[in-house]
Each structure stands twice: as C-alpha cells, then as structure tokens.
C-alpha cells in the first residue's frame, strides 16, 4: 500500500492524542489548572491535527460530512463518529477539570474508554480488509491500541506504565512482522486464484494492461526493498520502544529527557507506520504479478 504522508500523520498523531486522553481520563498526570489545560490542549490538538491531516487524503473533502452516516457497516464512518464524540466528551471532562477544578472521574473513564474505542475503530479500517492479509489480523488493533496508549503514557509522564506498554508493544510488533511476512502466502490468494487460471499451470504476468502507471499501482502496489525494510524495522523498534525504555531505566527523567524520548518515539512511530503501509501487500498486486 502506498505510504501516503497524510495517512501516516493522521494515524500516528491522532493515536498519540487519543492515547493521552486515555491517561487523562484516568486522571493522570495528577495536575490541575493551567497544567491540566495544557495537557488537555495537547491531547485535543494532536487528535484534531491528526484528523485534519486525514482530510488531505480525500479526493473530494466537500462531501466529508456524509462520512458520519454509515456507522452500521463502515469502520471509517464509526471512527469519524467516535472521534467527534470522544473529542466532545473529553473536552467537557477536561474543561471541568482545568477550569472548574472539578474532575469528574466517571466522565474521565468514559472519555478514556471512548478514546480507546476510537483508536480501535481506526485500526479496524485496516484490520477489516481481507484484501490486505498483513493487516487482516488481530495484531493490527492490538498494535494500534498499544502505540496509542504507550505514546499516551509517555506524554502523560507515566513512565512505569510506559515501560510495560513499550515492552508489550515491542513484542506484539515483532510478532506482527513475523506473521505479516507470511500473511499473503497464508491467505491462500495467489495469481492463480486471482485469475482462475491455475489449472493451466504456473501463471505469470506477460503484459500489464497499460504500459504506464495507474491509480491501482500507485495506491496499492508499493514495493519496498527487503534490506531497506529490515533497516526501518530496526529503527522503528529502537525508536518507539528500546531507546525510550533505556532512557527511562537508565537516566534521571527530566524535561529534556522526556523531549528526547518523545522525539525518538515519534521517529520510530513514523518508521513503523510507514512500514505498516509500505509493506502491506494488497491482493490486487497479484494481477500485476507484483507485491
């Protein structure tokens, strides 16, 4: 799949925002007043920036309003609705907390749960796709939830929670890659099933339908070099989990260190998300004899 910057930014940044909402919903960090307002603004800002970024991915954003209508069948619609509701609930919760000094825990738990549901709906946009076997797995929602919550833990300075979450994340991520590498093969879809020509022997593409590019190739057939991917995987693991974990364990965490941790985590996150798209093989590639 094409690793479009708008979608990478959307899913990572909004994930961090909702992750921070999770912790704030739990009343963490234990702050008040303008500090609470700042954290809330950060959470809302990240979520909103992420959501806005996603609209750059739209060909015809003027019709985006209709995206709230199809919650019965569409995970993308559910995500839109959940995101807006979550922002609303969290805003009320945070405003009461910061400005009225009246943090209502029940409302917080609700916002936290909704934030996680939002992240889950985002993940299901990808996980639901049978056409992308690498995504069509339980690891996809797990990872999205872990990335969001680990990022939220780091942002909310919950370093113990962060350590646990980062550890889980690293393990699940490694598993996802491992499983993902054989997902297309395990899916049973091949150029032979795609064409129905398996009875005639081994099938290969002779000529593409058009000699040049097309939307499908640009959007869904993205080939990454294996060596390149391996390097990025190392970078993603180091950046998101290992470097932050080491810093938490081995240093006196101050504001500078938190900054370094966040930069490391973000860089790793971008690498991870880039790989998440770039490595995902869409079965339409079978018609092009390409991953």
């Amino acid at each position, binding site marked *: 799949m094409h690793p479009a910057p708008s979608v990478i930014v959307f899913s990572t940044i909004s994930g961090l925002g909702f992750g921070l909402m999770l912790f704030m919903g739990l009343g963490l960090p234990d702050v008040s007043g303008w500090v609470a307002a700042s954290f809330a603004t950060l959470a809302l800002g990240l979520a909103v920036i992420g959501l806005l970024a996603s609209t750059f991915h739209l060909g015809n954003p003027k019709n985006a309003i209709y995206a709230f209508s199809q919650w019965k069948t569409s995970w993308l619609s559910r995500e839109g609705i959940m995101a807006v509701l979550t922002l609303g609930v969290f805003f009320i919760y945070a405003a009461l907390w910061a400005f009225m000094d009246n943090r209502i825990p029940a409302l917080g738990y609700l916002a936290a749960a909704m934030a996680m549901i939002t992240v889950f709906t985002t993940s299901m946009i990808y996980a639901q796709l049978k056409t992308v076997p690498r995504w069509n797995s339980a690891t996809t929602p797990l990872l999205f939830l872990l990335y969001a919550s680990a990022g939220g833990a780091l942002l909310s300075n919950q370093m113990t929670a962060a350590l646990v979450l980062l550890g889980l994340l690293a393990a699940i991520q490694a598993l996802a890659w491992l499983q993902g590498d054989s997902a297309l093969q395990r899916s049973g879809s091949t150029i032979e099933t795609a064409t129905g020509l398996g009875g005639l022997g081994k099938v290969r*593409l002779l000529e593409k339908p058009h000699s040049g590019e097309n939307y*499908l190739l640009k959007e869904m057939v993205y080939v990454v070099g294996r060596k390149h991917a391996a390097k990025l995987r190392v970078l993603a693991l180091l950046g998101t989990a290992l470097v932050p974990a080491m810093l938490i364990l081995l240093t006196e965490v101050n504001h500078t260190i938190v900054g370094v941790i966040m930069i490391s985590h973000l860089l790793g996150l971008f690498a991870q998300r880039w790989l998440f798209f770039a490595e995902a093989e869409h079965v339409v590639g079978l018609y092009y004899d390409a991953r």
Partner: protein
Amino acid sequence: MTQLPATTDKKLGLVIDLDTCVGCHACVISCKEWNTGSYGAPLSDVDAYGANPVGTFLNRVHSFEAKQEGCPSQTIHFPKSCLHCDDAPCVTVCPTGASYKRSEDGIVLVNEDQCMGCGLCAWACPYGARELDAMAGVMKKCTLCVDRIYNENIPEEDRVPSCVRTCPAGARHFGDFADPESNVSKLVAERGGMDLMPELGTSPVNKYLPPRPKADVNGTQPPALEAQSTEITGFLGWLDRTLEKI
C-alpha cells in the same frame, strides 16, 4: 446506503470468455469513451501527452502466461472490470453512503454526490475495479452502463454495456444471472464459469469462462495419414485408379 440489499430482483453482470478474448482492448476504450461523457465525472487523463500519462479506466485487459512443466506456455488475455459482487466489500466499507448496490438489478454504483474520495472502497476491492479519478477526486467504477441498458433513447438491441456491444470477438456476454434460462446462466453452466478469488467470499456476479484445453499443450494428436505409396510410381497408380471413378 452501504448496507447491501438482502436480495436483488435481478443479478445483472458479464460473462467473459477467456477462450475467445484476443486481447484487443476494444472493450477498454469503448468503455472509456462512453463513460467519460456520461455517468458522473469524466474519466480524466493526467499528463495526457507527457512522460507519465495516467488516466482513469473502468476496464483493463491484462495479459498472462500459464505454463506447465515440460509443455508449451499459453497466453491468456484477461479483461477485468467490476464484478458487481453479491457480497461487495467495497460497499460496506464506504463511510458516506456513496457506494451502493442496487436492489433491482444488483449493479454496484458510486453516487458521486456523496463520495468524499477517501479511496477505502478501492482498498476493499480485491479486483482493482475502482479507480479514484485524479481530477474529479471521486471514485469511478464500472456502472454496467446503467445509462445504456435501460436507455429508451437508444435502440433496444443496443441496450447492453458499451464493452459488450463493441467486442469484436464476442467474448463478452451481458445478462441476468438470477434467471437460470438466461444466456449468461447457460454459458456458465455449459462452460464451467468461474469466480475470481473465491476464497475472499465476495461472491462475484461476473463470471469467467476458462480457456478450452489446447491441443499442443495437453491434447492428443491425430495419427498420421496412411500413405498410398511412398514411391511416385505407386502414387501414379493411385491416381489412375481414382480417376477411373471420377
């Protein structure tokens, strides 16, 4: 509305005969010229005369080779457009309700007035049947020429999709799969019409007829002719005998 209809009155679709398709691309261009001037936004061509021309096409013809070990290879031309699946994943993923499957005939369409161009339906389609138009920003797909097949302004015999009307070899057939007596249902029954990627559970309406076995790949060869004689004198003897009978 992105909920699929429980049933459709008709199941309109295409049968594509891979034993007859010569890969001429007639259907590709006929589709393009009809649809660029009718249903919804035109099918644009970006960088049309430049280094990287990329246009929107609703139907494309791939060429494959298939080879068994120790046998000659075969070439198969393979037209591909929307299969108007019964369980169309492209419809249910749509967040805006732009994608829908018609309850009367099963045609899968995009209502461009609601499409926001997110591309998720194209991701959900295993077959590469949907293309986001780069200029209009809306999703384009085969409409089965819904503006031809019922069109009272064109002669009745021409009320078929543009690709079917134009196909020189007659490799494309249009009809109602819900009717077991229809031309398409019969062809599927007789020739073993098949689904593409059945493992994905999309239940495509369009069916493909597989190429018939090739004599040079797995057929038997007729035995050689029996010689009248290997000598010219013998041949002349045969000639005389035969001429007597004429």
